[in-house]
């Protein structure tokens, strides 16, 4: 075990014990227990003592054992009425998890039938041979795909598309750097655009759902996609400025053949139909998580998606999200979230300042931690702020949720910030230094725009 992991293990266990020994005034016994779980989870997530999804599973386990009605602790005679243990384990079938499951099935099936690659070739064609527009094209395609598929898988796929392009450029041409950086950045940015784009969106949407707010697929896109589009163009300008291509022409060779078989056609139709139904939720009223069952059902019943494919789904990501949702439930149910929020003098800060604090902390944390973990740790506090009236009403709650979800996704400074960044640096084309410079500028600008959006955009449409 490495030193970091060992430190995490010790800190986590010590941290877990603190609320069991020290009595915090104003916090109930279940609140203390929830705090123990919160500290343990935060430390394990930060130090990655165990894989982050195992920490999520541990959270659910501890909640069932310590905080549920069926658990080992007798709460009778106390104000706290423990929730049934189903509340904690049912997070694994939360509507947002089902939405992600549908997304995963679609994405994995797309990979299986090479739909992602062929789609990329077609979409890239109109962008010509000028390196400037090729980069824009690469970014646009990456962002669109990563809005519906995993950012990581999209990046890996785009790298395979880009390698032949890189092979045609001079080794000293800065275009190599701008191309290699454009892909992870576009993947990170594209992820914010839809609810299924990236896991932090799920954690935030689930927390908002629990407050009785239903967020339609299209509404989320209305809130977040403009930011994604704007930042995509900004990142494009920035990369061209920092690493202007020297060559004038990069001949693209985009030959590819659609996989033609009944199963592949089934996938094409189901993919298109699902996306259309998601985007048009407000017209037909069928919830996106119900629509998500369509690809799961149709692709499996037609054997387009088989047993081996089901086994290969990224189940650990669903556990990771479920643990995050479940931690939020425990913090809210036991009053811990309210207590934490109540212990800080928020009224010293203006509303905008408060949102900025949440955004900046989220941005900084998720440069080092998993984006999902960052969102999981911050959203219970954000929601409590909103319910306690400090940021005001349902719109305030939605805005703080958006600030947290979007800020985590714009953390792309280091190779460890996101898996797409790690892949890009591993190609050896990009130096970490280049990533830090461009990533920092993008993070700061995005933060600024997010704050402006709270005041001048979301404020009016919510």
């Amino acid at each position, binding site marked *: 075990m490495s030193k970091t992991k060992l430190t995490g293990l010790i800190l986590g266990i010590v941290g877990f014990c603190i609320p069991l020994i020290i009595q915090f005034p104003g916090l109930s016994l279940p609140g203390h227990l929830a705090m123990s779980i919160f500290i343990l989870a935060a430390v394990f997530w930060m130090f990655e003592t165990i894989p982050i999804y195992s920490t999520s599973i541990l959270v659910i386990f501890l909640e069932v054992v310590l905080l549920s009605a069926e658990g080992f602790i007798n709460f009778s005679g106390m104000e706290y009425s423990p929730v049934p243990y189903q509340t904690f384990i049912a997070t694994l079938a939360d509507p947002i998890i089902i939405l992600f499951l549908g997304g995963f099935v679609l994405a994995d099936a797309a990979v299986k039938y090479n739909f*992602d690659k062929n789609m990329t070739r077609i979409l890239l064609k109109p962008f010509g041979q000028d390196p400037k527009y090729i980069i824009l094209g690469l970014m646009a395609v990456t962002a669109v795909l990563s809005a519906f598929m995993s950012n990581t898988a999209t990046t890996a796929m785009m790298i395979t598309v880009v390698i032949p392009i890189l092979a045609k450029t001079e080794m000293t041409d800065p275009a190599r750097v701008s191309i290699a950086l454009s892909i992870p950045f576009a993947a990170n940015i594209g992820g914010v655009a839809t609810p299924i784009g990236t896991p932090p969106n799920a954690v935030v949407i689930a927390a908002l759902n629990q407050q009785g707010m239903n967020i339609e697929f299209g509404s989320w896109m209305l809130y977040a996609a403009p930011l994604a589009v704007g930042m995509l163009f900004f990142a494009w300008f920035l990369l061209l400025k920092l690493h202007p291509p020297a060559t004038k022409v990069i001949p693209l060779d985009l030959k590819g053949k659609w996989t033609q078989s009944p199963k592949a056609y089934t996938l094409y139709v189901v993919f298109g139909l699902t996306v259309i139904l998601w985007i048009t939720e407000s017209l037909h009223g069928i919830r996106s998580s119900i629509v998500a069952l369509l690809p799961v059902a149709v692709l499996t019943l037609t054997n387009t998606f088989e047993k081996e494919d089901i086994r290969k789904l990224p189940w650990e990501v669903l556990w990771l999200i479920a643990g995050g949702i479940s931690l939020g439930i425990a913090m809210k149910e036991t009053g811990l979230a309210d207590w934490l929020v109540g212990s800080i003098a928020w009224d010293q800060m203006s509303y905008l300042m408060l949102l900025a604090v949440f955004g900046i902390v989220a941005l900084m944390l998720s440069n080092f931690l998993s984006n999902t973990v960052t969102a999981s740790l911050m959203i219970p506090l954000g929601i409590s702020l909103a319910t306690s009236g400090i940021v005001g009403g349902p719109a305030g709650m939605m805005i703080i949720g958006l600030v947290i979800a979007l800020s985590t996704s714009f953390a792309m400074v280091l190779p460890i910030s996101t898996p797409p960044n790690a892949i890009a640096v591993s190609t050896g084309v990009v130096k970490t230094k280049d990533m830090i410079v461009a990533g920092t500028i993008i993070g700061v600008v995005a933060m600024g725009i997010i704050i402006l959006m709270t005041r001048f955009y979301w404020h009016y449409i919510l």
Partner: protein
Amino acid sequence: MKPKIYILIVEDEPEVLDSIVRDITEFEEHFEVEMADTAEEAEEIINEITEGENLIGLILCDHVLPGKNGVELLIEMQQNEKTKPTKKVLITGQAGLEETVKAVNEADLKHYIAKPWKKSELVKITRNLLTDFVINQVKDPLPYMQILDMEKIADHLRTSGGMTDQ
């Protein structure tokens, strides 16, 4: 500690050994290169390497050696759980048809390189085989992307689901 991946070269003629090592120097930054001039010495090295977590990714082996011959060594490695996944290559001018067939059938020989070889050919074969080895045997192939077949590793990441959003 991340397990190290070794390339093992077995060749009894010093000049030939040198030229093989020289041809694949570009891999030295990411892989450890070990040399032996007899099958017996190779066995010792194999035991040392595989005692811990370390792996032998590739063996480039001459056939005619003093003592035990190359094909016998490769077959032995195929029967050893730890060196079964090792990609096995014969570099030789003198292996007869019968022995070559034996190497293919019993040692899962991946390539037969006839002496004299071209550097580009040796590098290409080394890259391909190490890429396959890394994809199948290593949990995190990212550190090897740069030196090996990048496109193949990226495509493996895309299809295997080994890396996911966090």
